[in-house]
């Protein structure tokens, strides 16, 4: 039975990497104001939101299964307070940092209309920090984090997110940018 928790923890970690990657890509596409082939702009936004929320659910599965896995020796406090875990404090701590940031991003996004656009926007930028930290956590803390398949997956997702971020910084990122004269924000 304990094996099952470990397996679930590991599998949910891989799913999380995929969901968070797609969420980043769709979020960046939302920011650009462009539709995705047949998916209209609001569809891209809804897909971004739903996949991001799904990743919060998988984060819950990931954490609970590893709390129940005796081998991980994880205490509840280690999940939210980084770098104090008995086993692999740095690697696990990176996960805790990512979790804290993810909760902050999710909560401010859900309360966006109450908190106002400014708070939402500033906290939402944490996604750019949270994604690489979560990836690093996967590579360092995962029991197969340095295996060839996971490293290949990591390289693939990092390339995708990296390329999207580079695109984000180019002149042609925002739709209509070429004919707008206002400064970029």
């Amino acid at each position, binding site marked *: 039975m304990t094996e099952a928790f470990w397996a679930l923890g590991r599998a949910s970690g891989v799913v999380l990497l995929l969901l968070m990657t797609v969420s980043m890509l769709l979020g960046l596409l*939302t*920011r650009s*104001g462009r539709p995705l082939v047949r998916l*209209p*702009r*609001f569809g891209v*936004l*809804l897909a971004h939101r739903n996949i991001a929320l799904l990743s919060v659910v998988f984060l819950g599965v990931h954490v609970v299964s590893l709390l129940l896995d005796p081998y991980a020796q994880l205490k509840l406090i280690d999940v939210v307070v980084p770098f104090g875990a008995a086993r692999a404090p740095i690697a696990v701590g990176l996960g805790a940092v990512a979790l804290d940031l993810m909760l902050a991003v999710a909560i401010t996004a859900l309360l*966006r*209309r109450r908190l*106002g*656009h400014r708070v939402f926007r500033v906290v939402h930028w944490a996604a750019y920090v949270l994604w690489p930290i979560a990836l690093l956590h996967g590579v360092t803390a995962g029991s197969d984090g340095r295996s060839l398949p996971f490293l290949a997956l990591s390289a693939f997702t990092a390339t995708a997110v990296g390329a999207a971020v580079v695109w984000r910084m180019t002149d042609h990122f925002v*739709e*209509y940018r070429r*004919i*707008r004269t206002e400064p970029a*924000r």
Partner: protein
Amino acid sequence: MSASTALHIDWTRCRGRGMCTELLTGLGRDEWGYPLVAGGGSDLPIRTHDVEAADDAVALCPVLALSIRPARPTR
């Protein structure tokens, strides 16, 4: 039938991301991507079949530029 509510666009916030123009048929898009209310102005009268779409637009506008307010009486 005159609409009792209107979708108000706050132009100081709108960045022309075109979410609302997809949801509401009454909104066009100008050459810079910003929404265009037929007849000009900042308020689109919400017709009965557009109530849900208007609510969605308010919820989805990425920069919170939209709100629903009572429609001004039309002359």
